């Protein structure tokens, strides 16, 4: 289908990856996602394709445009200062992979 819609297409001729392995490592670390080493090359290509494609936004002049803050244009609704939930640690922990005496349990954090 890509050949049918050139207007929206990424630059397939570009062999330059805008996202290299260093960047993949950095963002994967930020996102806490382990990437299998054998996936890294393919991922560089895929993400570079996407990023190169979205860069077409650069051609649109937005110099005097405010970024959209919310689609509804409404103001934030507020609630009263009343305690309406809590006191049910069993429910809070009911799906926890590991818990102990109403605590969630994780590998030791060293500070």
């Amino acid at each position, binding site marked *: 289908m890509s050949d049918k819609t050139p207007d929206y297409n990424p630059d397939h001729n570009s062999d330059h990856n805008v996202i290299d392995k260093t960047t993949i490592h950095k963002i994967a670390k*930020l996102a*806490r996602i382990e990437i299998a080493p054998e996936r890294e090359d393919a991922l560089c290509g895929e993400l570079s394709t996407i990023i190169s494609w979205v860069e077409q936004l650069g051609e649109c002049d937005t110099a005097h445009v405010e970024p959209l*803050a*919310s689609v*509804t244009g*409404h*103001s*934030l*609704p*507020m*609630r*009263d*200062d*009343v*305690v*309406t*939930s*809590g*006191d049910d*640690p069993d429910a*809070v*922990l009911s799906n926890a992979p590991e818990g*102990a*005496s*109403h*605590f*969630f*349990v*994780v*590998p*030791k*954090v*060293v*500070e």
Partner: protein
Amino acid sequence: MTDVSSLIEGRTGKWEVVIGLEVHAQVSSQAKLFSGASAAFGAGPNEHVSLVDAAMPGMLPVINQFCVEQAVKTGLGLNAEINLFSIFDRKNYFYADLPQGYQISQFKQPIVGEGSITITLADGSTRDIGIERLHLEQDAGKSMHDQHPGKSYIDLNRSGVALMEIVSRPDMRSAEEAAAYVSKLRAILRFLGTCDGNMEQGSLRADCNVSVRRPGDELGTRTETKNLNSIRFIAQAINSEVARQIEIIEDGGTIDQETRLFDTSTGQTRTMRSKEDAHDYRYFPDPDLLPLELDAAWVETLRQSLPELPDALRTRLMDEFGLSAYDAGLISEDRDTAAWYEAAAAGRDAKLVANWMTVELFGALNRMGLDLADSPVSPDQLGKLVERIGDGTISGRIAKDVFAIMLEDGADPDQVIEEKGFKQVSDTGAIEAMIDTVLAENTDKVDEYRGGKDKLFGFFVGQVMKASKGQANPNVVNDLLRSKLNS
């Protein structure tokens, strides 16, 4: 302007210290900032946790109006600009006590903009410290590391509790100023009732940004010491950090921009994470929330209903009660203290009441390890005691004995004076008789006095007072003695 007095002398010359503080103050609300769980301190693990706080799939935040109101009130109390349009952002990072994987905070457009606080130093001088901003944000949960050798335990009770982060300008030049700033800020928050200021329970914590430079130079590299929960620790952490930085630079080294922790057992700071590990928080507006828009008239209503704040109270105490700046400062530190004072001083010698309160009462409470709220002496009792000094019933010296008894059993001063026979003798006849006896027993000194040795007057007063067992009215003694000696 560099205040020369606050410069620090190093091995190689003078250093100027630059301090900015980020104070996290818990809003005194019933429920959390974005959920209906209780914000109260001290429940069992995960008892004050809603589905929102535990970041269950599909759960959404709804803001607590009371918290917004407290932030605005605090902003007004800091003479700050209130932003009628503000935005909540997500600060993204992973941590065990951050269930959503982001903290809802305000980054680019906070609810409160620039303001200032006037601090008073021990020498009575004042300084204005700039406030850069105040914003609302969620507190994190708590990780406990000592329950298990290989695991950390997570309690989300604090997760989502409303905090006001109050960021100062880097306007402070010494630990003393930083301590005065936090004291003053805490007083303002307490007067406003927007935060209980309880540092032990973590309701008020400070992050200290510290750097040093040669006077007149550009700002030096700063370090941030996190989560200090007492004014004493703030001062200690700053002093130790200043010493560490000066030593490094004087040894030819450079300061790393990093986050540090204060070790309360050693009184030193240590590295927590370096700049290389600095987070990339990827702030962006929280799409689950809309912009917070405030009504200007509502803000004005809040402004009109603000209680009297420490500065205004201090000025009033000076104007209305004639107190010294120092006494007024001490008494206006805390709203309860001021209320106590005003109850004691009403219709009495206000300056003398202030004196008795700040010297005798505070000294005694300090020794006894009591708060003013637990004082065995009531405001009215202290007031009455001062009244009895004023009307000549007892002397100032005897008053101290009466006060000591009052402290022991909370007795009324009149009762103590009556029962213990402390009543001052003002009967001129009786005093005259005592003076005659003293003069008769010391004729040599009388001659010396009359020969020009004025200083002996005090000796005669002392002898008369001794003869009266301290109960003679010193004014009457003075008058009678003078007329007899000079006759």
